[in-house]
């Protein structure tokens, strides 16, 4: 599990990129849900945290593939492969992402 940020640092409609291998993007939707996915678009190498958040979809900033934050599945070309999704947990005002590589031993 990795610490992403505090809830205050991620208002609704915003996203944050957590560097690492792999880098992870955490989104706070306007509806108040938190989602975490692999930050790198499966089409090329755009950072999805830079993308446009619309409901529970993020549009890749380079070529507009739309990823469903709930499943990681792209709903249109040019991306074809899903991104990984990770469970998000909030504890005491801090946002944590579970299952990111590196914490398997825990």
């Amino acid at each position, binding site marked *: 599990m990795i610490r992403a940020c505090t809830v205050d640092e991620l208002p609704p409609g915003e996203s944050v990129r957590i560097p690492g291998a792999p880098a992870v993007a955490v989104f706070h939707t306007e509806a108040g849900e938190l989602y975490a996915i692999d930050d790198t678009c499966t089409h090329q190498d755009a950072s999805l945290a830079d993308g446009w958040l619309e409901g529970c979809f993020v549009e890749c*900033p380079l*070529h507009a593939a739309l990823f469903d934050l709930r499943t990681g599945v792209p709903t249109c070309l040019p991306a*074809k492969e899903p991104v990984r999704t990770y469970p998000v947990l909030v504890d005491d005002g801090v946002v944590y992402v579970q299952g990111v590589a590196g914490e398997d031993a825990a």
Partner: protein
Amino acid sequence: MKRVAVVGASLAGVRAAQELRAQGYDAGIVLIGEEPHLPYDRPPLSKAFLAGTASPASLELLDAGDLASLALDFRLGVRATALEPSNRRVLLSDGGSVHADGVVIATGGRARTLPGFEGAHTLRTLDDAVALRSSLVPGVRVAIVGAGFIGAEVASTCRSLGLDVVVLEALAAPLAPVLGPSLAAVCARLHRDHGTDLRCGVAVAGMDAAGVHLADGSLVPADVVVTGVGMTPATDWLAGSGLKVGDGVHTDAGLVTSLPSVVAVGDVARYHAGGTGRRHEHWTNASEQAPVAVANLLAGRTTRTYEPSGYVWSDQYSGTLQLAGHPRPDDTLSYVDGDPASSSFVAAFQRDGETVGVFALNNAKLFNRLRRQALRRPATV
């Protein structure tokens, strides 16, 4: 409709087939494509594929799951040779024909060639890219005619392969008619910063084994010559169909031709809106036209019209260039973030006090934010 023939098995044709299914059409779709390959994506042909870092499989537009769910009747390696509206038939180069109640024209275009440049490479198809790639062996000197998007991308990829590159451009600055003088200067700088010898205002006369001969009599020595001088819409097969063609297939603002059962999409579609005919040669356009054209085809009349987003990207050297909207070179340009000398900036084109275009170099986040706000592009969801 019992059968729709989609002519052209590339991006626009694939997107049209996907939209037919998405919009509930469950009868037959015949996808006719001249190239022997399953539908593939072209942008990487001048970038990662040419550089050797993307495989042919990674270019495929449809995976096994898509192929199964779309249930397309493929006719690949076959050219449509004529459209006979009165018989509702598309004739094929193998002597066969397809009976179809609806037709989607998605034949894109072919790379333009230059007289005197027989033996030069062009880059439009996978086969073109394979041929060009195999000639880019260490030590060759490359001359590229044309500094448009494709010429610039090929130059960039050749430099990444460590080759000597000369780019010969007729204009005073690359892409100036699209981007205006200051951004054209940025594009010129990208070439120079990465060791490409860009020569503007140059008239070429022809080529031979020694290289490219210029109109002033001088020789630019080269082992590999590439011409990147645009494309010609593939409408030859429509002669005699009664459809109006001329720099593309003429349609109304909803991509419907003079026949309600025939629509056109992608690079080949010349749609008429506000009294003028327009055609685009960009990926996003081909993708975004499909839902509109298909809705109108299924409705049997124009119920939706096409609003172009004008979105284009290009990867050149260390830069990702993004452009949206419909700027003119004489619009006022202002830098919203960074400046033309920086490695990352965002600029806006203004006309009569309104933002009509947004351009960015390596700043996708701000670009998209501005493009949404300033150009009020409707949400895609």
